[in-house]
């Protein structure tokens, strides 16, 4: 009898078989081939070794590209956190209609095409763009500043593009905090800053960690924004992989760079996941 009862509420695991088969064939197998190809020593194939990895790790140019990509992610994540946290905070303490409006404004960039979003930044940061036009109108500059194709431009554009990924998990974390805790803290004599630092911020850590993970992963893999705002002068890992594969047709090297990039992303993801577990323990303590 108990068995029949359980049967109604669960569905057969076999229902997952078609997707599982599809993933093994079209997701896992290609990645295994990518890994195998990265060990080929030359483009003709046949010989296997660590040549491609030695080439990558022994080349200061390649290491520079990897380093600047990982560092770009750090800068974007920090800026996104500084700007995004107050948005989540404001959403949490706004009346209903304002909440809806803030949510719409946060979701809009998430759902707008990434080319459109990036294109807007080209218009804003260009020589005849808004920033330069405004500065010239205020009489602060005589000649247009170079904003496109700069590091700062890439960071700001990516921060806008990825901000929803930071704001949404923090909103979730903030909404789970018992409002009585803040009241208790202020009754005990703590000011707003102190309550924020000692109560709200630690309790929202799981949301912060989740947001940072999503933002970081999205920022370092953001092919379109990196290439349109960064231009030809700034090379990041996704474009480096694309150039090696498509323009130079050097598949084994492209495969090796992809694996290096993939492993770097997985390492960062595991670090964030470990931090997430720690912060959940901290928040629940």
């Amino acid at each position, binding site marked *: 009898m108990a068995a029949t009862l359980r049967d*109604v509420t*669960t*569905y057969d*695991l076999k*229902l*997952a*078989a078609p*997707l*599982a088969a599809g*993933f093994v064939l*079209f*997701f*896992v197998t*290609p*990645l295994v*081939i*990518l890994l195998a190809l990265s060990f080929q020593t030359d483009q003709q194939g046949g010989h296997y070794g660590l040549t491609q990895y030695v080439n990558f790790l022994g080349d200061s140019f390649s290491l520079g590209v990897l380093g600047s990509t990982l560092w770009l992610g750090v800068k974007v994540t920090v800026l996104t956190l500084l*700007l995004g946290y*107050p948005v989540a905070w*404001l959403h949490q303490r706004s009346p209903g209609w304002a909440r809806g409006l803030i*949510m*719409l*404004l*946060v979701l*809009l*960039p*998430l*759902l707008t*095409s*990434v080319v*459109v979003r990036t*294109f*807007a*930044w*080209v*218009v*804003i940061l260009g020589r*005849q*763009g808004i920033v330069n*036009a405004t500065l010239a109108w205020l009489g602060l500059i005589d000649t247009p500043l170079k904003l496109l194709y700069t590091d700062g431009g890439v960071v700001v554009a990516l921060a806008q593009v990825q*901000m929803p990924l930071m704001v949404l*998990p923090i909103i979730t974390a903030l*909404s789970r905090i018992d409002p009585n805790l803040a009241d208790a803290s202020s009754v005990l004599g703590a*000011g*707003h*800053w102190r309550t924020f630092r000692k109560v709200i911020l630690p309790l929202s850590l799981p949301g912060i960690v989740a947001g940072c993970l999503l933002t970081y992963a999205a920022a*370092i893999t953001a*092919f*379109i924004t990196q290439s*349109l705002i960064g231009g030809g002068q700034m090379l990041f*890992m*996704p474009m480096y992989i*694309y150039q090696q594969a498509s323009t130079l047709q050097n598949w084994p090297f492209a*495969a090796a760079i*992809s*694996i290096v*990039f*993939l492993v770097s*992303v*997985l390492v960062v993801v595991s670090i964030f996941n470990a931090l997430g577990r720690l912060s959940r323990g901290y928040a629940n303590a």
Partner: protein
Amino acid sequence: MSNIAGRRIDLDALSFRIVMTGIALMALVLLVAPTVVVIWVSFTSGYSLKFPPPGYSLRWYGELWNAWQLQFAMMNSLKVAAWATGLSVLLGVSASLGIARSPTLTAKVLDSLFLSPLVLPALAFGLSSLMFFSMIGVPVSPLTLIIGHTVVSVPFVVRNTVASLAQMNPSLLEASSSLGAGRWYGFRRVTLPLIRPGIMAGGFIAFMASFDNVPVSLFLRDAATDMLPIRMWQDLEGRLDVTVAALSGVLIVATIALMLVMERAAGLSKRLT
């Protein structure tokens, strides 16, 4: 004395609110500004994306009727996104039903597998797919594109459907079964209606993810299957085309309309947080 203390607390509260609200408003302006700017300059009467525009007209929206390359790419993107979304919903919902309430290790492993495209760099997956298809001798075609897009879109459907299933009260199914409903009837009349908003939200995000996908399309498309985001990207790399601004305006309005529809039908914003 108490007066001074009171004032200090006020200053503390005030400074905290001013700083937080100030940064939040700045961030909200930053979030909206690009969208507003694109729509604004798309109405320019000039030939360049100068700011402010020299005059206003609808000419670039009119130009869209003649921009056959963009229209062709748009049709391709819509077709691929529709197929990828259909497949994602079909396979993703079925898989979610299988794994959602199962306590087995297999279910947990499958869950992580189905979600893993979200964290892996999509460009690496695009490249590996191209290598795979060329190795087994399948030339790139709309079919390879649809397969690649489905892999990167499925996680959104699985995540939302599994979440909906987890929130569903299982005793409702027990009740329907004790009232004599068969498994299929119970699924159709109890489970499906309850998880429909989750499926719709997941399907919507999957559609947007496919329609906007660059990293996978970059490797799996050929000249016959030009995709819209890539066409736009290549147009923008060459020169700043005002037609692209007009098209962006159309896409933004369509996105907002879809978002509002999905918000009413599936409570989209609640499902994203």
